[in-house]
């Protein structure tokens, strides 16, 4: 039996900053030191992994690459605490440790044939990126793809180059927002829930997936319901402090659910009556 507490050694292939500031976001592209790990590694969009450094600790992050992107995993990590600050010190060539894949995933198979709308805010785009990438790599399996994304300023946008590419490519409909007016910003100015109403996607044969700060999620959920989306058409991810990632250490529960094991992906129908899910 493989010990689920022992992480895999991995090498950082590339690392770059997505956003500036105190709480900057840095993306790491990593590959396992032992290539044989790929034979059994089988993650799906939405799944997570514990990423860390022995001697410092490990934290749970969503895997921000799609399984259709081969030979590496991506993690986009905001610098907020002890572990993330230490991880931010690492550069290409450095060693990092990865334990996973953990948790559940977006039901991409169930969604085949449907239109998909993703609604992201700030670092909340990280778990949505594999969904978008997966659809773009299996384009014929899905209907229209609408990507709605916003952050405080244009500098705070993650994955800027990829959004430029999506704007130009024609295989999806991409809508960007900044919270406040800025010079030379050609797109929407305002909050993501407002942009959602502006885009006003039809709920017909459509799934909406939203990730972002709690306050954004709250209003996105309200607006999706106004647009006619039912709770089982809406998906989101939850997060909490985690230590084990495998449903043992206890702390990530909301009600009877362990986010690390039963989540992080939930339909709104599954969690709307669990008060602690939005605590």
């Amino acid at each position, binding site marked *: 039996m493989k010990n689920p507490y022992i992480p895999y050694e991995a090498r950082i292939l590339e690392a770059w900053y997505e956003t500036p500031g105190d709480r900057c976001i840095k993306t790491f592209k990593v590959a396992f030191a032992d290539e044989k790990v790929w034979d059994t590694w089988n993650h799906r969009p939405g799944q997570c992994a514990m990423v860390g450094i022995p001697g410092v600790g490990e934290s749970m992050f969503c895997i921000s690459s799609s399984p259709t992107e081969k030979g590496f995993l991506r993690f986009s990590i905001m610098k907020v605490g002890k572990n993330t600050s230490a991880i931010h010190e690492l550069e290409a060539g450095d060693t990092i440790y990865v334990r996973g894949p953990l948790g559940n995933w977006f039901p991409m198979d169930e969604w085949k044939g449907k239109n998909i709308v993703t609604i992201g805010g700030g670092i909340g785009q990280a778990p949505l990126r594999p969904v978008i990438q997966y659809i773009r790599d299996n384009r014929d399996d899905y209907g229209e793809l609408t990507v709605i994304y916003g952050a405080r300023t244009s500098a705070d946008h993650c994955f800027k180059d990829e959004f430029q590419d999506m704007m130009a490519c024609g295989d999806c409909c991409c809508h960007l927002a900044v919270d406040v007016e800025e010079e030379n910003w050609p797109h929407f100015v305002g909050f993501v829930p407002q942009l959602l109403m502006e885009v006003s996607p039809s709920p017909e044969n459509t799934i909406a997936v939203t990730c972002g700060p709690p306050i954004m999620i709250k209003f996105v959920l309200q607006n999706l319901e106004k647009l006619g989306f039912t709770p089982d058409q809406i998906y989101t991810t939850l997060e909490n402090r985690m230590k084990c990632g495998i449903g*043992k250490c206890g702390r990530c529960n909301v009600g009877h659910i362990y986010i690390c094991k039963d989540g992080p992906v939930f339909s709104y129908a599954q969690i709307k009556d669990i008060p602690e899910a939005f605590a």
Partner: protein
Amino acid sequence: MAAKKLSKEKVGEVLQELSKFRLITPVKSDDVVIFREIADPQEAFLDYGNSTVPPKKVVFPQTETLFRFTLGNPELREKNVEEEGTTVIFGLRPCDARAMSIVDKLFSWDFEDPYYLKRRELTTLVGMACVQPPSINCFCTSLGGSPFGKEGLDVLLVDMGDHYLFQSLTEKGGRLEEMLSSYLEEAPAGEEEKASSMEEEAKAKIIRSIDPQGIPEKLPSLWEHPLWKRVSDSCLGCGICTYLCPTCHCFDVQDEVERGEGRRARMWDSCMFCEYTLHASGHNPRPTRKERTRNRISHKYSYYPKRFDVIACVGCGRCINLCPVNIDILEILEQVVEA
């Protein structure tokens, strides 16, 4: 297997025989009784009520290494629990054994926890029936337990006065019985019936109780109820209720490094601590003792049964006996019933 008789004079020899294993017994240490490994059978203190600290730490240590590493070397050296060797816990109470069988469900759910499960596999539990309820706050009978309960035990001993009635209950128990056969005698006729009536007498002496029927389903509906503020107002957040609880299993994971040598370890944590759920962002989904108390009670009496079909409380009464401000889980549950 037919019950045997273990004469009290032979207990020393039995413990001597068992000391070829890692032998854990109750030990008196100042005013408290704890479970720890003994080197000399004389240390065993078998004439006790219940231990202050439950023996859960034998299978789930308060701090344990997950793996070791040397800074600058990518190799992670997994802790080998097997090295700890075969263990016998001699003289634990039925509630504490039952607690282990409840916690087994968590550690074997989905991902198997190799450290805990290996220790469980290596450990034989020799229980000691409670002829007298050890505390006025015992309520095991409310939750499906019994002062003579056998769940989780490999052997049950019943104090019959000058000897113990020795009942082996599992394969592990059978192996132990075989090993100790030279110290065991045929049990006198009618002893098992006598033990049954002693069990009924012991049950009748338990004075506190709660009817858990309906509580698991009711708890989620009381989310915003004022009772949570009321019952947690006096809480100091010290966490003793969780540290002394035989079913509490929450842990933290921390890395420690000293002069280049490090380990990743896990250690008991408590849902009553503020840091337990504190996000790196500073947000805390359970910011006050009200939310934390609500979680402690709901976890034991609602979330755990919802997932594992059993209430994560065995009615040992330790959290009531030792709370510094007299918070009483039965009083809280009574308020839940009345709410």
